[in-house]
């Protein structure tokens, strides 16, 4: 965990006082709703369909046991006993009372948490890889860079009223687990190779071989105009990170469209100017800022690094005999281990995903009791902290291999051991029509119906890796464009319909899904998904070929034909018999 120092704490405390005063003036009629709205949004407070919704920041997804207990307490004392983890590594309360929000914020500040810039047209919470700091393919610990960006973006006086919201994602590893290609800015840590400096005219900027820097991607995004971003700089030496971000934001703040909120994101500006012209404007702006006082210094990077607590790793053998015995003896445990346990850079340790995707529970929802229990488990098994993934699950990053079986036994009764990470039922869904006033359609019952249809574990494992994402409207909070299968709620003459796309993906080979055809009524969705899966299982060349690979190889036509019945044949069965057959 990053621990606040006095100044960090004071800034958060002062924000609470400021917001308390703003709320007081609003309730006293001194601050009109129009004047108050942008202020409350900058503090995560929406007024939506049934009640206010308060979004609390979990900077880069990292949260401690003490903080989680506080969230549980808030869920109990001010809400209906549960909270919702979003795809943005935030946590949301759906039923707080407006006049109590300042109190909630004060309670959060006591555990170094806040709701600053969790909504509104400003720089939002910076997100990253949920395996930061423990991944084997790590280049840098992205938490450190995210915290630097958090401080820089917190209450930034120039960028509080941007044309639209602004989201930055950082990946510190070779594999991109932070969806950096579909953010307003994506940063990929890299080590400079020979020539990086010269090529970019970086010259004396410390781009010596092996130095840390970032590939800078701009203008990606989902929403109603999904676009994969453009790399405008292949290597930005780390010292220049903040001045360069400042230059991008400044160009966006000046020239981004403000006349139409659907055209106001940076991706539209980049597209309208063309990436090359946009990049040129940024470089021009940067030429004035480069080397200025906001240029990062090594002392600061080290200071931030030093304020993170680190687990004290024991020296453990790389293989654990007890674990191996359990894996051999217990099939259910082995299944869970296969899906939900991930490699760790320190021998004898593993990272574990606690699934919030048990059938029947709304994706991302956790009860206060679960939060308390999870906080306790994190203390006992994983150095008292955990991460929220953008797949709306929780990660224990530092579990000893020898503890895995015990941990699994404890989380089973809590409903957190669904062995479905990376599988079809690990559905990502936004809150949708049950909570969100912008929704065209509900998402939670759709997720549940799909989970029920695919409740056969062997079948699920046979289908293999598959990301399924659901959004309740074009705002795409459920990231349906980058789901291997994406489901989007649409409105057809006042009725809830669902449009289905396939072929989207996140990560290094990110792509946007293609719509297969006209939308379906809700009852038909599980059956359509099943048909898509049938085509895949029949067409795949081997078990290694994932759903997404098959779509890429054969295109969407065979899927379309089968689903819409232009081809009434059941797909031909391939080489092997299916587990369900």
């Amino acid at each position, binding site marked *: 965990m990053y621990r606040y120092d006095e100044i960090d704490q004071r800034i958060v405390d002062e924000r609470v006082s400021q917001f308390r005063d703003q709320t007081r003036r609003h309730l006293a009629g001194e601050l009109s709703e129009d004047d108050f709205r*942008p202020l409350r949004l900058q503090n995560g407070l929406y007024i939506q369909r049934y009640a206010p919704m308060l979004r609390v920041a979990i900077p880069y997804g990292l949260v401690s046991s003490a903080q989680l207990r506080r969230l549980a307490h808030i869920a109990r004392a001010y809400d209906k006993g549960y909270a919702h983890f979003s795809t943005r590594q935030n946590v949301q309360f759906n039923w707080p009372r407006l006049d109590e929000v300042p109190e909630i914020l004060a309670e959060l500040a006591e555990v170094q948490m806040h709701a600053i810039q969790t909504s509104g047209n400003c720089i939002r919470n910076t997100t990253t890889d949920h395996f930061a700091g423990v991944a084997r393919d790590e280049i840098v610990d992205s938490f450190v860079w995210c915290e630097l960006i958090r401080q*820089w973006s917190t209450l930034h006086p*120039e960028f509080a009223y941007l044309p639209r919201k602004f989201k930055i994602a950082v990946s510190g590893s070779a594999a991109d687990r932070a969806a950096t290609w579909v953010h307003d800015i994506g940063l990929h840590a890299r080590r400079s190779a020979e020539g990086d400096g010269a090529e970019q005219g970086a010259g004396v900027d410390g781009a010596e071989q092996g130095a840390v820097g970032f590939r800078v991607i701009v203008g990606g995004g989902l929403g109603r105009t999904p676009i994969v971003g453009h790399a405008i700089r292949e290597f930005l030496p780390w010292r220049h990170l903040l001045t360069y971000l400042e230059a991008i934001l400044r160009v966006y703040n*000046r020239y981004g469209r403000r006349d139409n909120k659907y055209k106001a994101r940076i991706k539209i500006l980049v597209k309208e100017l063309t990436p090359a012209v946009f990049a040129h404007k940024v470089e021009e702006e940067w030429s004035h800022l480069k080397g200025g006082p906001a240029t990062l*210094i090594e*002392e*600061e990077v080290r200071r931030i690094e030093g304020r993170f607590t680190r687990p004290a790793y024991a020296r453990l053998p790389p293989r654990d005999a007890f674990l191996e015995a359990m894996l051999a003896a217990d099939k259910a445990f082995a299944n869970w281990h296969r899906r939900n346990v991930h490699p760790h850079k320190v021998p004898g340790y593993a990272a574990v995903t606690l699934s919030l995707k048990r059938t029947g529970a709304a994706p991302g929802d956790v009860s206060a009791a679960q939060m308390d229990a999870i906080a306790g488990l994190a203390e006992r098994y994983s150095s008292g902290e955990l991460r929220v993934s953008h797949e709306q699950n929780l990660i224990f990053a530092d579990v000893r291999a020898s503890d895995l079986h015990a941990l699994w036994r404890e989380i089973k009764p809590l409903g957190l051991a669904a062995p479905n990470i990376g599988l079809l039922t690990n559905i990502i869904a936004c809150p949708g029509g049950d909570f969100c006033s912008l929704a065209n359609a509900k998402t939670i019952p759709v997720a549940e119906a799909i989970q029920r249809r695919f409740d056969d574990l062997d079948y699920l494992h046979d289908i293999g890796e598959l990301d399924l994402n659901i959004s309740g409207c074009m705002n795409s909070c459920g990231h349906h464009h980058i789901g291997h299968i994406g489901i989007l709620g649409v409105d057809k003459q006042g009725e809830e319909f669902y449009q289905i796309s396939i072929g989207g993906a996140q990560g290094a080979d990110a792509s946007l899904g293609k719509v297969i055809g006209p939308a379906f009524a809700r009852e038909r969705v599980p059956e359509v998904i099943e048909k898509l899966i049938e085509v895949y299982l029949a067409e795949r060349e081997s078990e290694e070929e994932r759903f997404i690979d098959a779509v890429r190889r054969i295109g969407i036509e065979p899927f379309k034909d089968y689903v819409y019945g232009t081809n009434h044949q059941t797909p031909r069965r391939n080489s092997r018999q299916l587990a369900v057959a």
Partner: protein
Amino acid sequence: MARIIKHRAVIQDNWQLLEQESGGSLPSDGDVVVPLELWMRERDTLSSRLGHIGVWLQTDADPSTIAQDLARFEVIAVRFASFTDGRGYTLARLLRERHGYRGELRAIGDVLRDQLCYLSRCGFDAFALRADQNPEQALSAFDDFAEAYQATVERPEPLFRRRLQPDPQRKAA
């Protein structure tokens, strides 16, 4: 313009603001803030008249168009059609930091108490608040936050550099 905030105090203000549509009918003397277009058109006449001169800009103005003239203005005002128009914040920084403008920089239009802190960090030092705002009550807004992480016009060094300086004044503040 009547009572405005300047340098964190409420003062009586005697500048006249000339609207765009006034068609250039200039009061013969006295201090006047003219629209940018008028300045561009009648720079010389304006410079030769009695009284001080200022110019006001829309938030989308390009500051480089007046970069050569800055020394001639006592006041530059930026008019916010809405307080959520963030361009005015960047414009202020560019005037101060890029073009070195040192005179009064005034926020006018939809300017409210709750934006004063950020506006002043971006280089505004005078504020003609929206008519329904109480300037005395707004003064406390400047102290909403004691510190800022970023490099700002008020404090050109970002916090991370200032932390390294053993500056007794900062501790006392």
